């Protein structure tokens, strides 16, 4: 009796499984036809395409060259190269950002750098067409030429 019962249960389970796979069969497919729809914007905010350092209209960024992102990067992808400069207001020497080098070729997109930045100076964009023919093209300098540190708004 148990034998027959288990057979019937087996048949019922099998029909359940086939029902599920049929649902998948008729579900509309979401695959993107990539080279054909080039230029279409993929609206995925969370996608990590490329690391950028946003600059405002006065060519100012928020990076204080603290180097925390460089220390947190497991792959040595980021190099924060700073320089010393005399601050006119206080007359003291101050560390400012010279070059922020990001090697796209060794980044694993773990986002530890973005999470750990205390100034929220770097972020991700959706740009994903990274293929190049030579490796040096993958070394990106993220701060723009002649950019400076954004002045903190005074808290009232």
């Amino acid at each position, binding site marked *: 009796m148990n034998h027959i019962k288990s057979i019937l249960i087996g048949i019922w389970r099998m029909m359940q*499984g*086939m029902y599920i*796979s049929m649902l998948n*069969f008729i*579900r509309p*497919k*979401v*695959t993107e036809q990539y080279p054909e729809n080039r230029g279409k914007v993929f609206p995925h905010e969370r996608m990590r395409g490329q690391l950028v350092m946003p600059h405002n209209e006065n060519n100012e960024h928020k990076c204080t060259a603290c180097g925390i992102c460089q220390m947190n990067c497991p792959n040595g992808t980021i190099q924060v190269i700073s320089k010393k400069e005399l601050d006119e207001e206080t007359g003291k020497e101050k560390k400012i950002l010279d070059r922020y080098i990001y090697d796209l070729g060794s980044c694993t997109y773990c986002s530890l750098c973005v999470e750990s930045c205390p100034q929220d100076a770097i972020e991700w964009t959706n740009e994903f067409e990274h293929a190049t023919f030579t490796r040096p093209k993958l070394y990106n300098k993220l701060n723009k030429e002649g950019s400076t540190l954004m002045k903190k708004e005074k808290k009232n």
Partner: protein
Amino acid sequence: MFHFEVVTNWIDEFLRTYLSEGWALFIEFVLIGVAILAVYAVLALILIYVERKVCAFFQCRIGPNRVGPFGLIQSVADMIKILIKELIRIDRADPRLFRLAAFLVIIASICTFGAIPFDKGLQAVDFNIGVFYLLAVSSLGVVGILLAGWSSNNKYTMIGAMRSGAQLISYELSCGLALMTMVMLSGTMQLSEIVEQQSYAWNIFRGGIPALIAFVVYLIAGHAETNRGPFDLPEAESELTAGYHTEYSGIQFGFFYLAEYLNMFIIAAIASTLFLGGWMPLHIPGWESFNQIMDYIPPVLWFFGKTFFCVFLALWVRWTMPRLRIDQLLNLEWKILMPICLVNIVLMALWIIYV
């Protein structure tokens, strides 16, 4: 109803008016051989394409879509690729058996293919023991598989071949018993006769519950005989790389591949011939106008429609179920399918006597 018989008869008469009987027959044999090989190859290409598309859809993908519109020429491109591949000589393999194995597998499948009635008069061999012939010839393939596993001098192929032997020989039983049930119902083994008999009700309707059970059992057992998915132990790629055809390359591998797909088609074709009426359109006794409309659809289309329906069922199961373990596989056959089949034969006898 247009039958292909007209064309074949016309060719026959045409040849006989110009040639002596012997030459006419000879030319007909050659023509039939070429036609069977051509249809075999084309069907294999179509099936490979269908399989890849259906499998993709079950996995929420799109499948081949680059070569030609909707990837239609994909399998043709694959065929060309496989034809120009090198045949690798296996070190310390048994070269003669190694080469023979691939041919055995494909010859068994072509021989079975020849006996399938595509339409009235579109059937290469029509014995009065047709069902018996189908079973006998299709089981020849297992010899090829065993040889392939043995001669490749490789443990994976050996294990694959042994599994395949155990599996095919066991499932042959319930396969044969399920077909036997239908032979009981029809009272003949000749395939053309069996199809003729179903002109007013397909066997699956005529035979009632026993026929339905036999149909399901046949589909399961036949599916197991083709060595495909949930029953693909002989070539379980996660355990045995590719099972019995691991060492094959180029067109020899292509033979195994073709035979696998065509066996799927053959199983589906036998199922549709014996249970779903073969090329017979759907006729309902008494509904004359409905029957007339159904007759407008050519029988070849009916045949292929039913067969591809069965193929789709096989693919559906394949992409739903996980692979069985070898003991589960044999349990399924010996403890479940076989007893069901034996009881079913008695049921069918009662059905024939009392209904």
